[in-house]
């Protein structure tokens, strides 16, 4: 007996196949090919040249500086993000809504503009910069400036991940904990932190990816001094302007590698989160 087949709206084979086909074409053209090209170009003159490019003195320095910036930025924004999320989800105070909106400013503002603002404020001629200059403290065109703008650009990631989760979880568990006699620190350590750990890790991964890859804001405040204030993304651009395409792609392949690792870890964390 033939049973009538019921189809949902838009579920005809033609629509389905063309949508899938379109998605595949775009993914290959826009995402996969450029990524593959990086490694193809980087290795176009053989492994020896590739390794040589990576072990170049300036490239090594750029790698070091990039990791150093990330190492400072990530813990800072992790603490800041947890603090902020805790503040806006556990307390009611005037200006709370405004604060939640302000968290997004670094997302809304172009990183180049952010870099310029820091330069105007903390540069040698800026308000704060002039005052600091009297004490021989220079923030711009050196690593503190790079860290400052990177912190600015990446500060929403952790808070953005935590706020919806903590809002949804509510504060009942913490209240139950405090009734049972837990101190503030015990509450955080034993109840809040375990409940948000995967979202926190996710936020940290995103922060790290962005801190490593940030170009616009950093290029304004770093001064691009080779071997001193050159981060990996800036180094890629410099090599490319030197007509050293293979070297530029070799350095890019490192950034792409970090991106791929980030994606893998992100996928694992998402999988863990969905199981909870």
């Amino acid at each position, binding site marked *: 007996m033939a049973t009538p087949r019921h189809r949902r709206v838009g579920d005809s084979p033609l629509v389905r196949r063309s949508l899938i086909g379109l998605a595949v074409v775009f993914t290959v053209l826009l995402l996969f090919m450029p990524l593959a090209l990086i490694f193809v170009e980087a290795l176009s003159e053989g492994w020896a040249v590739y390794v040589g490019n990576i072990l170049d003195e300036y490239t090594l320095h750029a790698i070091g500086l990039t990791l150093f910036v990330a190492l400072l930025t990530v813990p800072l924004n992790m603490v800041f993000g947890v603090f902020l999320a805790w503040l806006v989800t556990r307390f009611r105070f005037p200006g709370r809504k405004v604060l939640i909106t302000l968290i997004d400013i670094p997302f809304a503002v172009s990183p180049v503009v952010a870099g310029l603002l820091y330069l105007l404020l903390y540069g040698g001629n800026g308000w704060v910069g002039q005052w600091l200059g009297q004490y021989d403290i220079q923030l711009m065109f050196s690593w503190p400036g790079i860290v400052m703008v990177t912190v600015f650009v990446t500060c929403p990631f952790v808070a953005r991940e935590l706020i919806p989760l903590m809002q949804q979880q509510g504060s*009942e*568990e913490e*209240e*139950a*904990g*405090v*009734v*049972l*006699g*837990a*101190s503030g620190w*015990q509450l955080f350590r*034993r*109840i809040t932190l*375990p*409940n948000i750990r995967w979202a926190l890790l996710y936020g940290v991964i995103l922060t790290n990816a962005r801190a490593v890859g940030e170009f616009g804001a950093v290029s304004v405040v770093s001064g691009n001094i080779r071997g001193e204030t050159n981060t990996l993304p800036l180094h890629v651009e410099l090599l490319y302007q030197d007509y050293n395409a293979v070297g530029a792609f070799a350095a890019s392949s490192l950034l792409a590698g970090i991106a791929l690792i980030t994606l893998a870890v992100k996928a694992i964390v998402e999988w863990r989160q969905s199981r*909870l």
Partner: protein
Amino acid sequence: MSIEIQGINKFFDRFQALNDINLTIPDGQLTALLGPSGSGKTTLLRIIAGLESAEQGRILFSGRDVTGLHVRDRSVGFVFQHYALFRHMTVAQNVAFGLDVLPRRERPGKPEIRQRVNGLLEMVQLDHLANRYPAQLSGGQKQRIALARAMAMRPEILLLDEPFGALDAKVRKELRRWLRSLHDELHFTSVFVTHDQEEALELSDQVVVMSNGSVEQVDSPLELYARPDSRFVFDFLGQVNVLSGTIGNGIIRQGDAWVKLPRGCDDDDGQLYLRPHEVRLTQQPTREAHLPFRIEAISVIGAEVRIELKPDGWECDELWEVGISHSDFNARKPQRGDRCYAVPEVGHLFCEHLDEPKTLNWH
């Protein structure tokens, strides 16, 4: 441990959530805070626990002022409506939490904690679930674990915020009985919040009825049901049938409906309140009452047959409800749309100029 609540006022911005609450909760009793949502009962419970603070007033435990004492130091047990179990901990870890966070000097040793947790889990008859996570439990099991967790610190005061509100009817009834027996065994002072009048009347020694941030009446369940102080309490405690009318010459009248009042009443506007079981149904009006109805609906489910009545020739805000026995129903076989008359046996008269209702008896 008795609880004394003195002159509590609480505001949320400009909204007054609690208005000058004065209340004594006796030692070792089960007290219900009953009221509709928004009546302030949960706020009051949270103030007793210390989870919320009041603008004015004092809270005393056995005469000791605890108003300024932090929640963590009040050592009360608290059970939340949605259980608030720690989701990343096993059942045993949940129950052990209070003991685990004690300062090192006061904390019992690991084996003793394990022993006490096992004892508590046996008390709630869930010792076989010790290693499960909250997500793997049913609602009723979660609430029993929450109770065990609250009892772990051996509190003398147990506060429960709509403890059975999120459970289905059958589990709710079971847990209610179980809490009653646990209370009879351990004799702690408990206060629980509910909006379910049946739950309050069945479970508690004393019921505090609240509305709009004020206490309406405090009484034993029996007294409360038999002699409500106000229209609000009357309305809130169970189904009630109302005849609003004008009183003249000892008769309350509205449209075609009238009832002779047995006691001398002044001429006034008034309302006659009748419980469903205080009304009889007849085919003909009597000399004392003329309350014509059409039968609107018949429900045969339950211990008695519930008949909904629509007034015929007069008006009321809500349909009347009368319960008759199944044998009575089978003898007469009333049908939808039939005309019939109600005859009051006991009633409660509220008049404009009287603060308290008058209880009337026709027999």
